[in-house]
């Protein structure tokens, strides 16, 4: 199995983003997904900046994949999507069927917001050029096992194994709403929340995280103890989602577990300290997404 770094879901200052990817260039992830997938107003890095970064990471030996917007509403967004899909230098991750339409006939990756829930869907997209798919977040390991049996030749499977879970997309910006600002004058408040803005229930249970137009889980999805099972299931790529706190350490711990240099339980205990709120892994085990298995709960202690 290879490690990948998913697209940066948050909005960080340009210098921090570039410094982050300089460190990633030195890290043991083999695949790096680059680009803005959440909000087209986030332009501190323009497409040309992302492409330059892509060249640098490719020169450092990484397989670079350009990731695309999940919610496409305007013609300007489609125009930008056409530029990404037409660039031709890098593999592209489609996060919407509009991107699949533009990429059809060439190799592409389907992100987790493209709903691939059954073998027939996987088969059809494979004929369109699907080379790798990211397993939908809400499905279980049991479902993955069945899908793996139906997987067409030449298609790789990628599973998100670390990060706050993207749960929903809206035209509305909930970060702007939290500041009583209209979306058009959001003042780029996302910059203040490098891991999203945590939302709690009225009893103060931390529940979700607002990330602009995207709503995430407050808890961090963590499958570090499930990597043996992923290997048994024939998973090809294990994805880590970037966060502001020590992503390189997260990568290193996953890498050492993959190499057999560190027991998964020990990595799990250390990873617990790198979560903004706490762990969850319920989807993988066929339950509510926010649930945490006993192993995950133990690691809190």
């Amino acid at each position, binding site marked *: 199995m290879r490690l990948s770094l998913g697209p940066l879901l948050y909005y960080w200052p340009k210098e921090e983003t570039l410094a982050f990817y300089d460190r990633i260039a030195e890290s043991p992830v083999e695949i790096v997904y680059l680009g803005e997938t959440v909000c087209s107003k986030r332009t501190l890095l323009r497409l040309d900046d992302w492409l330059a970064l892509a060249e640098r990471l490719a020169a450092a030996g990484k397989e670079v994949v350009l990731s695309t917007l999940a919610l496409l509403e305007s013609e300007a967004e489609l125009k930008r999507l056409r530029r990404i899909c037409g660039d031709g230098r890098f593999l592209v991750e489609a996060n919407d069927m509009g991107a699949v339409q533009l990429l059809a006939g060439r190799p592409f990756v389907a992100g987790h917001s493209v*709903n691939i*829930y059954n073998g027939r869907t996987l088969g059809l997209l494979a004929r369109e050029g699907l080379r790798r798919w990211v397993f939908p977040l*809400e499905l279980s390991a049991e479902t993955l096992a*069945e899908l793996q049996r139906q997987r067409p030749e030449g298609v790789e499977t990628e599973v998100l194994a670390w990060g706050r879970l993207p749960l929903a997309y809206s035209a509305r910006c909930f970060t702007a*709403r939290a500041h009583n600002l209209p979306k058009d004058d959001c003042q780029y408040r996302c910059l203040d929340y490098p891991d999203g803005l945590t939302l709690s229930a009225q009893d103060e249970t931390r529940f979700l995280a607002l990330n602009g137009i995207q709503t995430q889980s407050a808890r961090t999805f963590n499958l570090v103890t499930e990597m043996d099972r992923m290997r048994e299931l024939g998973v090809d790529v294990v994805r880590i989602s970037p966060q502001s706190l020590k992503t390189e350490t997260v990568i290193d711990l996953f890498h050492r577990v993959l190499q057999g240099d560190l027991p998964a339980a020990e990595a799990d205990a250390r990873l617990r300290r790198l979560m903004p709120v706490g762990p969850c892994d319920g989807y993988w085990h066929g339950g509510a*997404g*926010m649930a945490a298995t006993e192993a995950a709960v133990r690691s809190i202690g």
Partner: protein
Amino acid sequence: MDLVCPAGNLPSLKAAVDNGADAVYFGFRDDTNARHFAGLNFTPAKMEQGLRYARERGVKLFLALNTYPQPSGWERWRSAVDRAAELGVDALIAADIGVLDYAAEHHPELNLHLSVQGSATNYEALRFYHQRFGVRRAVIPRVLSLSQVEHVVAHSPVEIEVFGFGSLCVMVEGRCILSSYATGRSPNTYGACSPASHVEWRETPAGLETRLGGVLIERCGRGENAGYPTLCKGRFQVGGNTYHAIEEPTSLNTLELLPQLRQAGVAAIKIEGRQRSPVYVAQVTRVWRAALDACERDPAGYRPQPEWMSELSKVSEGTQTTLGAYSRPWQ
């Protein structure tokens, strides 16, 4: 513009037909559709009766088969497509690529509509469904502004149906898994959002609490009406404030936009609410029929009548209505 109305059972279907629907949409009694609620939807016998009732009155019937089958459920969805074809419904409303592919291959005569659960917000996505499966109409998510709807219609290879009235999803449909995050069940996997099986109501000293999957969604003081705890419509705390952090419990009502939607070339208006009562279906269908007819007669002089608006607010969630993303007060 056609008026497409919901039916969760035979009395609702009749109410929609009798009050002026051009088409009625319904589903089988299982998780193959996105209103998989206890006691709702049609057994094969009721479906036959419904079909006959609608046919005799010249009203079309659309079957919603708009959830996402996993491998373990595939046979059930496949046979549901076969049954829909046997029944001869006027359209199959589907979201899943595998389901659409199967229907297009095995039942080429079946008219296919892309469900709102298919999350198509742009015309490139619509081209995909049109070119691969011959989809003829798409229902677009309730997230686009009026000018974006106009733009999609202008470039779309298929007819566009938009939501006109009913409960409002502020998230892109088909891509929201908030419900399964709290309960393990989502519209995609199970055909229900915030399922009743996971709801608890509890009187506490702090007020009436409603929970979903154990998560506190709403706490109401005396004199406040406790609504159904749909996850995105709860009151939460963000940065020290307690408010409807995602969306207020309001209904969509686009009566006043009818001339613009007509001008844009929208093919049909959809009314939400298969889970609602036959009385709701009758009232809403009657008002919308009158409005569509008025708009058709005289688009320039069209104004929503005050009595239409008051009829509709009586049956609205939270008794408030909004233009939703079409007007975007929050933009």
